[in-house]
């Protein structure tokens, strides 16, 4: 077993380095002024990029918009994927096969196509260039994962608890709130946080559906990545990561103090 232990420790530390290395590099590049090629550490540092970003009036608005959109898409995704997951796990019905294909379409079809056809639809419902419109388009890319989470959890707990609730006199609503939902609390939290993460990372969807009115952090960030403005890209990347980690740990806290069943 000794040899195995070393290899595993090596793999884990390798991966630890790969997960943390990007963070280190990004936080380093935020302050780089000049970094002549061959030397390992930057030649001169500067705060001017950081200050310019902090003072820019777009930043606070973009952060708030990003959070609102992320939370809205997470909520919508949970509301849609809970019943869908249940239907797939606990019932056999005719169109089941088609639905399970439909769910995976957003994962496979190139995002541009989805965005375009949705854009036209959203315009018809006058939802284009609104926070709700952007949250809806983000939901498309969140659903495949969240439906999967609920489907697996429903299959795991089976139908007996729910039926037991009914036979003991509980109606649909009380059984939902007292029996099924508590058992699903973990999945609700997991899907919610996954929704937030995926939404914060979206660019093309927010750009086209948001039409410039919905300015999230990634809208500002991506052009800087594309055109090699490394300092500004690092700063906005750092903000995006910080935003994601904060919302993730907040949600994780919420479900941590409930017993895990």
């Amino acid at each position, binding site marked *: 077993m000794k040899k195995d232990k070393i290899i595993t420790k090596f793999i884990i530390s390798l991966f630890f380095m790969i997960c943390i290395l990007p963070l280190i590099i990004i936080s380093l590049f935020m302050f780089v002024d000049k970094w002549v090629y061959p030397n390992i550490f930057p030649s001169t540092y500067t705060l001017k990029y950081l200050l310019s970003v902090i003072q820019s009036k777009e930043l606070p608005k973009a952060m708030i918009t990003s959070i609102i959109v992320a939370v809205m898409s997470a909520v919508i995704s949970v509301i849609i994927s809970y019943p869908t997951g249940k239907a797939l796990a606990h019932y056999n019905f005719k169109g089941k096969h088609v639905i399970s294909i439909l769910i995976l379409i957003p994962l496979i079809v190139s995002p541009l196509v989805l965005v375009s056809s949705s854009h036209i639809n959203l315009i018809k419902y006058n939802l284009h260039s609104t926070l709700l419109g952007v949250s809806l388009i983000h939901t498309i890319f969140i659903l495949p994962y969240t439906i999967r989470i609920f489907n697996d959890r429903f299959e795991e707990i089976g139908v*007996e*608890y729910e*039926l*037991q*609730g*009914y*036979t*003991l*006199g*509980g*109606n649909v609503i*009380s059984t939902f709130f*007292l*029996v099924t939902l*508590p*058992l699903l609390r973990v999945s609700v939290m997991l899907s919610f946080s996954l929704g937030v993460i995926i939404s914060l990372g979206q660019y093309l969807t927010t750009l086209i559906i948001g039409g410039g009115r919905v300015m999230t952090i990634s809208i500002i960030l991506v052009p800087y990545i594309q055109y090699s403005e490394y300092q500004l890209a690092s700063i906005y990347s750092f903000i995006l990561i910080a935003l994601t980690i904060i919302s993730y740990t907040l949600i994780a806290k919420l479900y941590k103090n409930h*017993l895990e*069943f």
Partner: protein
Amino acid sequence: MSEVKIINLTKSIEGKYILSNVSIELEEGEFLSLLGPSGCGKTTLLNAIAGIVAIDSGEIFFGNIDVTNTPTNKRKATIVFQDYALFPHMTVYDNIAFGLKMKKLSKEIIKKEVMELLEVIELSDKINNYPKELSGGQKQRVAIARAIAIKPMVLLLDEPFSGLDNSLKNTMHKFIMNITKKYSITTIMVTHDKNEAFKMSNKIAIMLNGEIKQIDYSKDIYKNISDIKVVEFLEEFNIIKGKIINNNLVTQIGSFEIKEKQNKYLVFKYDQVHIKYSKDKNEMVAEIIEKYYMGNYTTYILMYNMERIQINIADDKFDVGDKVNIEIKDYKII
């Protein structure tokens, strides 16, 4: 007026009949066992009575109320699943109180009822524990207490003892018999173990692929047995096939006078046969080929005119190879 009345219940899935014309009638407080091999539809019948599985046709009456189309939460028929399905996120107290909360009773009444039940099942000290902290037997008692709490018209038990070891089974048998008698609850239990059925219930229904082949008081099961498949299922009878010659059933071991024409089998229980050493040559003679010592009785396998006969008797002095003649005390022609 019977407490539970089921008339011609049928259910089929993709053309295959799961339940075909099942009819049962129970008085208040009776304990019926649904006995049959696995996959014979007894669990589906139980679920149908509980209202969690839809049926194609037939009626179900609790007392004089027609509950055929009543949704399960209003049907007042509680079921205890095979793995108990105790709500993992609720304490023992909340589990038992669940049904009462649904009836929107006041807190005090619920508390009184639940404490009383906890006394009966002797688990008052486990009131705030979670199901995963209980043993198999304790879980079952809580599940039953939860089912009884709302005073159902009928209690349905789905193979309640399959997960328990033998010693625990006996204690649980007694527990369920007492508690159902104490609250005189009409109970239907599903089991594939015939000893359990005979021991616990006063009525037994033997089910084979979706049909109730025989339904009787436990003591009359053997007396009124009439279906060869039931005989085979009970595995306590020797079955000898014979030919009918002018209203006599002639078999290898003798011919017997018959009443109805279509009967073709001579059946007799393993313990209804006596054997003794054969002195007289021309009497019927059988040879013992196998011998098993079964604890409180001995099983002998005899070959008699190429018919294989099994007998269970207390006497263990016979040996393999002895020649004996047999005497059938009690038999039936089916």
